[in-house]
């Protein structure tokens, strides 16, 4: 991140008659303040993370032992589907949008987001989207039970009636993401403080700019595919119904055309966060800032040409298999290489290991393990043995839980003193880290083994040879699950009390957000800072 030396705007010269936040519920309902909306996104994401987590614990409790103990198979499928949907669209994406809302204006010296009212609206439709989705749990026929990838015809002709609620839920989530993305692009491109050129922007802002373009390109395609589903179910078309000339494989192509860029949408902001945290605690500038920016930009384009590596066993002609294998292996290069940049940043640095740094290092190690299993999955012939087994479940949980979730936790611990003005309780933070670290590995590493041994995905019960590793995974899941209560305690504790945090907060921190006092005043950078 380019070094930024800027004169500290002292609080006094804020315009004196400016008013603090409104009082009561109205503050949150009508707020157009990027900090309030950021907090609401993060609180919403944390609650969704808990709900999704409870569903994960139900799944793991059932899979603790062979035999059906707790739930009957149809409800189990509902749990896996809702767990996937809520974690992807409810926990990870809103958390990143919340962090973007909080930090981007402060990092580029802007007073607020470019379109504050749209910002409010794109948050407030989210709780209703998930209310619609979650209410389908109580409808006759139950919630969606066709997996978060909702392949046709299971999700069209053979779906429970609540599928229509699922479709409208996804429509609204998509609208919220698109509006959020438009808002972020407009803010980054038009509202940077003078002197804050694109070259000097922190990497978190860069990765979010690229993610926003990805969102605008693919969320409409997701809206398109669920609209096609709606027409198939209710208006008698046959996009995906072979009887009327449609094709279920068409669904998979259009879904994964959205799906693969979506997984990059869920990891690029994490790259940005880690690229902010490691330089701070290594007290050394990020190694190869330009390479990171260019590599992230190339991912935005290359992620559109590899979607069919999710479909190697669907019966593609040989030309298709070989093409998507080559393309997937080639685009792994700009993605994987970033890890070397982080390690090079640490090399010859001067490191301290507070909680954010612990999470960041765990991210680099465990995300790379997920990246390696991803590389193994790219080998098409081997994928015939891996596809739709627990090996794939282990892969994407390694890139999502120690990947996206750990980076969100790292960001929260990193910027919380700036938001609340209180220093972090390091011991509690470390307790949460080590519990999560152990829980995540005990949960997901055994899944590699049962997956290779032949256990398919999304099954409520399994053969005896998979029993031992599954019970271990379930124990790990409960450890990881309950250690998130420590996280909630840490956050609430930090909001309520703690030593006064300085503006700088972290010794090695660079960037505009550290030039304003902690807690960050309600309105910051009303007058743009001088950045040279």
């Amino acid at each position, binding site marked *: 991140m380019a070094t930024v030396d800027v004169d500290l705007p002292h609080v006094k010269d804020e315009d004196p008659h400016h008013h603090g936040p409104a009082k009561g519920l109205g503050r949150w309902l009508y707020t157009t303040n990027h900090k309030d909306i950021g907090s609401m996104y993060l609180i919403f994401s944390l609650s969704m993370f808990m709900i999704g987590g409870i569903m994960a614990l139900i799944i793991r409790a059932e899979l603790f032992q062979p035999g059906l103990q707790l739930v009957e198979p149809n409800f189990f499928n509902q749990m896996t589907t809702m767990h996937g949907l809520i974690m992807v669209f409810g926990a990870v994406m809103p958390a990143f949008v919340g962090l973007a809302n909080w930090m981007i204006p402060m990092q580029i010296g802007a*007073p607020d987001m*470019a*379109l504050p009212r749209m910002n409010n609206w794109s948050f407030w439709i989210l709780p209703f989207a998930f209310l619609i989705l979650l209410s389908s749990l109580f409808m006759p026929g139950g919630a969606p039970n066709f997996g978060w990838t909702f392949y046709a015809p299971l999700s069209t*002709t053979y779906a429970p009636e609540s599928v229509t609620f699922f479709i409208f839920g996804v429509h609204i989530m998509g609208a919220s993401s*698109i509006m959020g*993305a*438009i808002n972020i*692009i*407009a803010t980054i*491109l*038009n*509202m940077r403080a003078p002197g804050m050129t694109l070259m000097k922007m922190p990497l978190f802002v860069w990765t979010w700019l690229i993610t926003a373009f990805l969102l*605008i*390109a*693919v*969320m*409409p*395609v*997701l*809206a*398109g*595919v669920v609209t*096609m589903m709606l027409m198939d179910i209710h208006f*008698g078309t046959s*996009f995906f119904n*072979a*009887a*009327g*000339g449609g*094709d279920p*494989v*068409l669904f998979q*192509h*259009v879904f994964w*055309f*959205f799906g693969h860029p979506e997984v990059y949408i869920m990891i690029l902001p994490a790259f940005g966060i880690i690229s902010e945290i490691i330089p701070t605690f290594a007290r050394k500038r990020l190694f190869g800032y330009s390479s990171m920016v260019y590599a992230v930009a190339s991912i935005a384009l290359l992620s559109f040409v590899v979607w069919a590596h999710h479909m190697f066993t669907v*019966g*593609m*002609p*040989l*030309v*298709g298999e070989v093409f998507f294998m080559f393309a997937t292996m080639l685009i792994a290069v700009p993605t994987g290489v970033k890890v070397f940049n982080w390690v090079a940043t640490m090399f010859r640095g001067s490191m301290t290991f507070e909680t954010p740094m612990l999470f960041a290092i765990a991210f680099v190690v465990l995300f790379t393990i997920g990246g390696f299993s991803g590389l193994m999955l790219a080998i098409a012939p081997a994928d015939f043995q891996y596809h739709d087994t627990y090996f794939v479940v282990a892969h994407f949980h390694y890139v999502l839980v120690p990947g996206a979730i750990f980076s969100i936790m790292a960001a929260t611990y990193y910027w919380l003193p700036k938001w609340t003005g209180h220093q972090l309780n390091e011991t509690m933070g470390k307790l949460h880290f080590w519990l999560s670290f152990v829980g995540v590995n005990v949960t997901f590493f055994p899944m590699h083994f049962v997956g290779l041994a032949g256990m398919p995905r999304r099954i409520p019960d399994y053969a005896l040879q998979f029993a031992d590793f599954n019970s271990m995974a379930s124990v790990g899941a409960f450890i990881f699950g309950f250690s998130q209560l420590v996280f909630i305690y840490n956050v609430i504790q930090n909001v309520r009390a703690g030593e006064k945090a300085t503006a700088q907060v972290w010794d090695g921190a660079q960037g505009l957000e550290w030039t304003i006092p902690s807690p960050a005043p309600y309105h910051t950078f009303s007058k743009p800072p001088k950045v040279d």
Partner: protein
Amino acid sequence: MTEQNQTKTNRLVVRLATAAIAMFGFGFALVPLYDVFCDITGLNGKNFSQGPADVASVDRSRTVKVQFVTVNPADMPWEFKPTLRSMRVYPGEDQTTTFYAKNSTAEWMVAQAVPSVTPSEAAPYLHKVNCFCFDRQPLDAGTDTEMPLLFVVDPELPEHISTITLSYALYDLTDDQKVTQLTLDNDKGRTSL
């Protein structure tokens, strides 16, 4: 937000919004794009060639085994099977075969056969000159029929392909037909007034 910044933002937002709507359209454009792509590569064993194929000459140097397979999806009660399990054909030579269908239920029904070819690489080379799958096949209660298929294997079929399997999934479209029939009658009724 200075004045000039505001207009710049508005123009940017309009451009981004149109991009989002364009991508929504692109999502739907993927459907015809997919069919064109399938027709060229035979992806998923589909080919939409209908009618006589301009085939060079009969290639008597090799024979290709063409197998016939039938599937009754969902709750299709008809009995449906090929009269001939497989044939050895010369590429370029017109061939005919029939498929037996019996409607053993107590009501009039109409069905639509959906073809699929494997290996998908061979799909563009199997030309269906005339096939019962081109249109819907009605059957009265308790009656049966033999439905014709005229096809020719294109001599340009790659050498390494020696067996082509053509499968038909027979779908029950009785309800769909009744709905379309209803609308047709209404139109006729309305026009005749």
